[in-house]
C-alpha cells in the first residue's frame, strides 16, 4: 500500500511537471494550431534564466519571475518575427520553428556556457517528509500544488472568457474574425506570449527538481509536450491534465513493475490512445461551453 502511495505521488508530480510544460503548448498548438517545435527551447530558456536569477539574487521567486518575463519577451519576438508569416501553414511552421529551436538552444551555450548548470532547490523546499514508509518529497508536493493552480486558472479563464473562443475562431477563419471587429493579431500575440511564458515557467520549476540543466533538454520535453497535447485532445486543458497525469503515472508504475518497458511506455500509451480514440481523450468543444 505504502508503495502504491509512494509511486502515485511521484507519478502525479511527474505528470504535473509534464502538464506545466504542455499547458503552454495546449494554447499554442492546441488552440492556435501552431506546430511550435521551439516550445522546448522556451522551456530551456525558462529553466536557465530561473536558475541564473535565483543564484544571482538568492530568491527562488525572483528567479521564477525572471523566467516568466524571459518567456514573455521571447514569446513576443517569436510571434512577431517567426510565427506571424507562417500561420495556417504547418509545413512551414515545422521548418521555421526547428530553425528557431536550433538558434535558441545554441544561444543558451553562448550566454550560459556549454556545461551543465546545477539547479538547486530553495532551502525551504528541500528534503522530504517521512510518514511511515511513505516518502513525500517537498518539492514534488510544491509542483503538484502549482500545477493544480495553473490548471484552475487556465480552465476557468478559457471557460468564462471569450478569448478561447476567439482564438479558435481565428484559427478556423482569421479573416472573418477580423471582419467582426476583433484585432486577432493582438490576441494571437497575447496568447502566444502567455503560452511561451508558461513554457518558461515550467522550465524554471523543472530545473530544481532535475538538479541540473543542459541546453539539449528542450527537444526531449518539447516532444513530451506534443504527445500530451495530442493524446489529451487538441486544445483541451482538462485533456492535457489527464494525459499528463497518465503519462506520469504510467512512467512511474512501469519503471517499478515492468522496467523493461519504461523507455517506451509513453510511446506505447500514445499508440494505444490514438488507435482507439484518434481524436484524443477529450473533445475540444468541451473547453468552452456556455
Amino acid at each position: 500500500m505504502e508503495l502504491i502511495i509512494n509511486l502515485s505521488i511521484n507519478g502525479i508530480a511527474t505528470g504535473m511537471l509534464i502538464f506545466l510544460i504542455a499547458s503552454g503548448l495546449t494554447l499554442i498548438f492546441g488552440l492556435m494550431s501552431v506546430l511550435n517545435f521551439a516550445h522546448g527551447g522556451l522551456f530551456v530558456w525558462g529553466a536557465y534564466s530561473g536558475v541564473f536569477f535565483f543564484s544571482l539574487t538568492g530568491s527562488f521567486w525572483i528567479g521564477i519571475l525572471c523566467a516568466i518575463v524571459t518567456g514573455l519577451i521571447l514569446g513576443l519576438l517569436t510571434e512577431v518575427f517567426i510565427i506571424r508569416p507562417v500561420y495556417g501553414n504547418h509545413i512551414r511552421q515545422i521548418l521555421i520553428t526547428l530553425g528557431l529551436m536550433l538558434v535558441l538552444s545554441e544561444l543558451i551555450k553562448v550566454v550560459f556556457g556549454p556545461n551543465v548548470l546545477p539547479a538547486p532547490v530553495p532551502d525551504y523546499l528541500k528534503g522530504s517528509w517521512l510518514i511511515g514508509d511513505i516518502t513525500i518529497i517537498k518539492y514534488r508536493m510544491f509542483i503538484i500544488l502549482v500545477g493544480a493552480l495553473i490548471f484552475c486558472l487556465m480552465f476557468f479563464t478559457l471557460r468564462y472568457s471569450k478569448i478561447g473562443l476567439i482564438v479558435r475562431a481565428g484559427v478556423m477563419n482569421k479573416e472573418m474574425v477580423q471582419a467582426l471587429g476583433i484585432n486577432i493579431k493582438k490576441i494571437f500575440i497575447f496568447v502566444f506570449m502567455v503560452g511561451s511564458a508558461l513554457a518558461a515557467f515550467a522550465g524554471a520549476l523543472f530545473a530544481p527538481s532535475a538538479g541540473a540543466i543542459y541546453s539539449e533538454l528542450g527537444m526531449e520535453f518539447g516532444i513530451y509536450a506534443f504527445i500530451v497535447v495530442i493524446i489529451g485532445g487538441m486544445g483541451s486543458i482538462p485533456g492535457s491534465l489527464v494525459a499528463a497525469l497518465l503519462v506520469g503515472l504510467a512512467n512511474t508504475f512501469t519503471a517499478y513493475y515492468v522496467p523493461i518497458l519504461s523507455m517506451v511506455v509513453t510511446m506505447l500509451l500514445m499508440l494505444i490512445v490514438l488507435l482507439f480514440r484518434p481524436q484524443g481523450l477529450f473533445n475540444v468543444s468541451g473547453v468552452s461551453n456556455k
Partner: protein
Amino acid sequence: MSESILKLESINTYIDQFHILQKVNFEVKKGELTVLLGRNGAGKTTTLRTIMGLNPASAGTVTFKGENITKGAPYQIANKGIGYVPEDQGIFYDLTVGENMRVAMRHENDETKERLDWSLDLFPDLKRFWKKPAGQLSGGQKQMLAIARSFINETDLILIDEPSKGLAPVIVEAVIDAIEKIKDRTTVVLVEQNFSMAKRLGEKYYILDNGMTMHHGNMKDLEQNEELKRKYLGIG
C-alpha cells in the same frame, strides 16, 4: 439628397498578381439599399472584400462616413460600424451556434440581447440548434447563422453577399422582411443574384463586369431597361 455613407473612387485591387478590380467607382447613400449585380466572376465579392480591407485596394480610395479607410485593417474597418456577411458564410465550424454568435458580440449587454432575440425569432432554427457545432448545420441554416451574426452589433452599414443563396422561399421572405426592417437603422449593400429579391429590396443598383463598373442608377429604371437586363443579367 441624402449624404453618402460609403464611397469607392477608382479602386484597383489585385489578388496576388491578378488585377481583379479595375477603377471601380461605387457610392452608397445613407439609408438607401444598394444592390451590386453582375455575372459570376465580375468582381462583386472582391468589391465587398476591398471595402472590408480583406483585399486592400492598391490604388483609389474608400471613404466611409467621410473617413478614408482604404488602408485600414479589417478589424478597424469593422469597428467603424460595418457588418459583413461573406459569400462562403464565414462561420466557425467547430464552434457551436451560440459560440459563433458570442464571438461576434462586441458588447454583451441588454441591447445585444434584444438584437439576438430578434434574430432568433427570425430564424427559429438557430435557437433550436444553439448548442450544436455550426459545421453540422444544413446549408441553409449556416446561411441563417451568417446573416443573424451580422445583425448582432450596432452598425451603420451592412454588406451582405448573396443572402438568399440556399434559403427556402419562406426563409427568403423572412430575410426580406428583416432587411426591410433594419433598413431604417442601418444602410445595406446587397450582392444578389436573385433578381426578384433585388428588385423588391433595392433602391439603387450597380452593375459590375470584368472588374469594372458598367452601369448604375435607380433600381426602378433598371427594371424598365430590357437591354441592360439582357446584356448583363441575362434576363428580360
